């Protein structure tokens, strides 16, 4: 029989609500949204891409360019929600030797003053649940807290399973779990997701995987308006298909900001990881 972590998950469920609440209020993501609510830019990049040790260079470059949040992709062999660009960057990163352990090693100490250039921008890790399960959910959350990761986006960990099995552990270590909604998500489910989410809600712009370059259609605008009118308690960032100034601007009309991923991966590939290259990209998006 395999050994499961059920006992721990159960023990902590509901036992430390005060502690949990206090931890969450100190989170850099919630702090950010309490100070700024418009035109937030969240940029995604894949850890270990283009080169294994580019993570800190890109992270510092994004901070210097003034992005509001950074989403670091934990590469996975089977990223089903991702299009070709991010798939390939995941494959390359794995070939380069990237792993969760290597990523945590790279991030170690990045928040500390003595590093000379401390990272202050909120950090999210984005990836798939299996590598996290193999690392161990509690060990993962603990390490996130240690190195200064503020939240995670795990698209294949649906809300009900998160709440049933893992929420107490994430909360104990003050790690936010960001949930997705799509144009097909029903109103009652959006309400439920809003109720159970901390930080922000990730609005997937259309029925698609990442990396679409089709622009923003009327039906997408109608969906953005519908969600805007729901007055959710959480802020919203729009992602998938946000790849230039126009799409970023449009997204910002309807939400608190937007997330750019595939377009930045393509930029890194073409223009490199220098601070100037990253600044140029961020300028193009924000103009």
């Amino acid at each position, binding site marked *: 029989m395999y050994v*499961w972590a059920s006992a721990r998950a159960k023990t902590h469920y509901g036992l430390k609500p005060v502690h949990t609440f206090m931890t969450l209020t100190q989170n850099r993501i919630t702090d950010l949204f309490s100070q700024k609510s418009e035109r937030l830019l969240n940029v995604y990049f894949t850890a270990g891409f283009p080169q294994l040790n580019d993570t800190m260079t890109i992270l510092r470059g994004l901070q210097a360019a003034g992005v509001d949040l950074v989403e670091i992709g934990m590469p996975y062999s089977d990223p089903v929600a991702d299009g070709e660009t991010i798939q390939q960057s995941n494959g390359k990163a794995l070939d380069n030797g990237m792993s969760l352990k290597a990523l945590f090693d790279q991030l170690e100490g990045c928040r500390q003053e003595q590093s000379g250039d401390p990272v202050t921008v909120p950090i999210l890790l984005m990836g798939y649940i299996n590598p996290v399960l193999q*690392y161990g959910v509690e060990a993962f959350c603990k390490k996130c807290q240690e190195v200064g990761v503020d939240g995670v986006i795990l*698209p*294949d960990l*649906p809300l*009900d399973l998160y709440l*049933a*099995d893992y929420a107490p552990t994430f909360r104990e270590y003050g790690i936010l779990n960001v949930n997705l909604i799509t144009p097909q998500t029903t109103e009652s489910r959006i309400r439920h997701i809003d109720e159970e989410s901390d930080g922000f809600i990730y609005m997937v712009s259309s029925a698609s995987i990442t990396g679409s370059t089709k622009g923003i259609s009327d039906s997408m605008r109608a969906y953005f308006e519908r969600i805007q009118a729901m007055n959710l308690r959480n802020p919203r960032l729009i992602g998938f298909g946000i790849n230039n100034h126009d799409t970023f601007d449009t997204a910002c009309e309807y939400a608190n900001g937007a997330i750019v991923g595939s377009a930045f991966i393509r930029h890194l590939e073409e223009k490199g990881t220098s601070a100037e290259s990253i600044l140029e990209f961020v300028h193009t998006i924000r103009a």
Partner: protein
Amino acid sequence: MQTTLEPQTSFEVSDKGFYGHFGGAFIPEMLYPNVEELRQNYLKIINDPAFQAEFWQLLEDYVGRPTPLFLAKRLSEKVGATVYLKREDLCHTGAHKVNNTIGQILVAQRLGKKRIVAETGAGQHGVATATVCALMGLECIVYMGSIDMERQKPNVDRMRMLGATVVPATSGSQTLKDATNEAMRHWINNPVDTHYIIGSVVGPHPYPDMVARFQSVISEEVKKQLFAKTGRQNPDYVVACVGGGSNAAGAFFHYLNEPTVRLVAAEAAGQGVSSGHSAATTALGKPGVLHGSRTILMQTEDGQVIEPYSISAGLDYPGIGPLHAHLFDSGRGDFYAITDDEALQAGFQLSKLEGIIPALESAHALAALEKMNLKPDDVVVVCLSGRGDKDLSTYAKHL
């Protein structure tokens, strides 16, 4: 909320889609509405008398069911027990796969879907899907790893002749696992009008349960046939090969709660369990999440999925269905790892002893007989899941 990490002993799927610790629906939100629509409707649809009537009529007139239960006398003598073969190889399209595609296409019609997407490894499920799409006049898109398309050219031609569009999966390792990823991505991109026909008892709930129910016709027939032939309610063993495990799920289904019947699963050891070229999931894997369910999975320490290997393209999948993971974890099933060579020898043996050329997948189940320490009065049912026509070139290399 009830945690899914608590022990559970039943072999039936729970409300949340778990068999013991395994199963569930680990899917991105983009797939939630599709999977939820299916979850809410599949039992209602399947249990509807009109659906049942159409399903059974098609199984009889189109698939050619019931398939025979054949007493293999010379094989019995050779292995020293009474061996019956459930002849799924005689199904239309040459394997059990069509039992599931008939069921799912009828579900898709009732959900008002206009297009079918499917994944395929060796091409058997792709052919079975293209077949029912032709029969029902629905558009059919099959994703197949580009390496598999080269290896299984005749099946690519068959699918195209049946009117399907075969799309090469060029991502990752370009085999079954990547074809499955691509089919899921297609479904994410086309959520409203498309139904995804998964070919095995894998994927998010309710797929494993739905596919097992459609394949359960195998053990339903075996029960009746064995009783008619022997007067016995149950055999001592039911043996089947497991890649994802759909023929095994069907062959085991009506025996899950009959503890006197040992359920035997034959996995592909490839060139040997420790060779680095294997698909023996329970021997090499650990619990993990792949393609929407928590199961046993071949993976690196870092949780990256390992590309499996087997001489049989239908068995080289890095996971197994969650039901089988539960059978393994709970000790209800006996799992044997069968090498390429052992499977080939079992295939040659059956051909010579009984005049039946088995699919290489099914040959793994036959090879397990040699390892089971059978006694002379044991009665064994082997699910002969498919015929070997597709494997002739592989067999021929080893003649």
